[in-house]
């Protein structure tokens, strides 16, 4: 139940995408997400879909896993599609009944929106599937490091993120343990109305809070004992290096954006 939550859903592998530099991956993912929203007609959108599918195949992440990442957004997907069908009007009318009207533009917008959302989620999950959370925050730290000029503590933020991700499994385990202990004392977590269920969570959350604070203190002490003083002058165990393949990937994404813009100009916009 609780263990189904996947944040930091890394799928270990050794594909081209896994081996790419995390910084480049992060930037390129961002760029291709922007590209999704540049698409103005079905040709450019088609190019985008080809790119997304190709990236998925390259990552060697099983299709089942990718589809699983779409599960939580199915409701949003259907909701936006339906809303767009009925609320956008223009072009030929396909169907009309009293105040309900389905038009060409409505259908187009709905399809566009659905495909955009799906590729957005697929691309961003590919990033988390192929990059470990630590590498990801590390990359984020380096990309954001110019912000140090504005006195933003980039390292501290990145460290906080790393620690937060690191402790998710630990906390899940802890919750399970406390839940079992309280269940053994007859706590009923499964039945009753909303109020009763919310109340039933008190015996779980108070011990959880207490142990989280304890853990936080212990961790802070342990880090201090090992000489941690923050980001100043820290060197890295893993040096990130850009390789030829990273530049090829960069070129591919540039070509994608260029292609989308060209197709947008060449063909008529539908949205």
């Amino acid at each position, binding site marked *: 139940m609780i263990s189904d939550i996947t944040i930091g859903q890394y799928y270990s592998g050794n594909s081209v995408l896994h081996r790419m530099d995390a910084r480049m991956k992060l930037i390129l993912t961002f760029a291709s997400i922007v590209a999704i929203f540049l698409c103005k007609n079905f040709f450019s959108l088609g190019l985008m879909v080809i790119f997304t599918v190709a990236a998925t195949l390259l990552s060697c992440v099983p299709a089942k896993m990718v589809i699983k990442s779409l599960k939580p957004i199915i409701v949003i997907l259907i909701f936006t599609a339906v809303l767009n069908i009925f609320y956008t009007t223009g072009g030929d009318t396909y169907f009309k009944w009293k105040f309900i009207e389905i038009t060409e533009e409505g259908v187009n917008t709905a399809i566009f929106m659905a495909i955009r959302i799906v590729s957005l989620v697929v691309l961003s999950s590919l990033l988390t599937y192929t990059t470990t959370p630590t590498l990801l925050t590390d990359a984020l730290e380096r990309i954001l490091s110019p912000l140090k000029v504005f006195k933003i503590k980039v390292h501290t933020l990145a460290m906080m993120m790393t620690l937060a991700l690191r402790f998710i499994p630990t906390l899940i385990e802890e919750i399970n*343990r406390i839940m079992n*202990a309280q269940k*053994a004392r*007859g*706590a009923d977590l499964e039945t009753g109305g909303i109020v009763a269920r919310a109340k039933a969570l008190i*015996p779980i959350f108070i*011990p959880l809070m207490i142990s989280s604070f304890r853990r936080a203190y212990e961790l802070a002490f342990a880090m201090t004992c090992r000489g941690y003083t923050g980001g100043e002058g820290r060197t890295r165990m893993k040096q990130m290096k850009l390789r030829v393949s990273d530049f090829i990937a960069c070129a591919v994404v540039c070509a994608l954006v260029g292609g989308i813009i060209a197709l947008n100009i060449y063909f008529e916009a539908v949205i």
Partner: protein
Amino acid sequence: MTSAIEITGLSHYYNKGTPNEVAAIKNANLRIEKGELVAIIGHTGSGKSTLISHFNGLLKPDEGKVFVDGKDIWQSKESLRESRFKVGLCFQYPEYQLFEDTVFKDIAFGPKNMKLDDEEVKRRVLRAAQLAGVKPEHLDKSPFDLSGGEKRRAAIAGVMSMQPQVLVFDEPAAGLDPHARKQLIDMIKSYREQTGCTVIFVSHSMEDVAYLADRIIVINQAEIAMQGSVSEVFSRGDELTSMGLNVPEITRIFLMLREKGYDVPKDVYTVGQAVPHIKRLMEGGRAI
């Protein structure tokens, strides 16, 4: 007479249906009679905790059946809930489950869940506090103001207050100093003597096992490797060692003395049993 707990053909797998499937417990059969004091020993990760989580239905067996007091606990929702109150489970580091603002309320959590009236709840809380050795003046304090050993007693009282027929402890003395450890072990002993309930405990300390238990169940690599009386199990020291376990220290010392040619028995498992033999040796019972 029905057994307190009977388990037949029990298996439990983690990550079932994935390539990482591992058996946490495989085809376990055991019977624990009413009033027995049974120790479960085994290497870390051998499946002890998984096994005891089946006793009150926290885990559902993938194969096999669990009977508490002769009743299949997975028969219906009621029988499952009943088993929660019949079998009290006290996990490792139980002090981490304290949550109420006073010790009294925390101990009352179990009985309240049993929907007993206030009078009965109070009676049970006081009785449990006395059994677990919680000082009366601590009952109105916040559990978080107590010391480590006191917290643990309060948490144990929280399980005892349900007055279960079977009380299961998972490493009750883990992380306590030697003095608190001794007190806790004695508390378990007197609890059994006073209530006559069945007690099952998991331990890594062979000394505690020898001191407390009537019977030992040895688990190794997800299977029940041995079952028997203290002397039956500890007489198979070599097998225990191969499972990453051991016999009590005093037993080892006596075995060494025997090797050196002293006339001492090999079935000595507690310091108490050892004292007369040592005395005899000191008074001039020389080597034979």
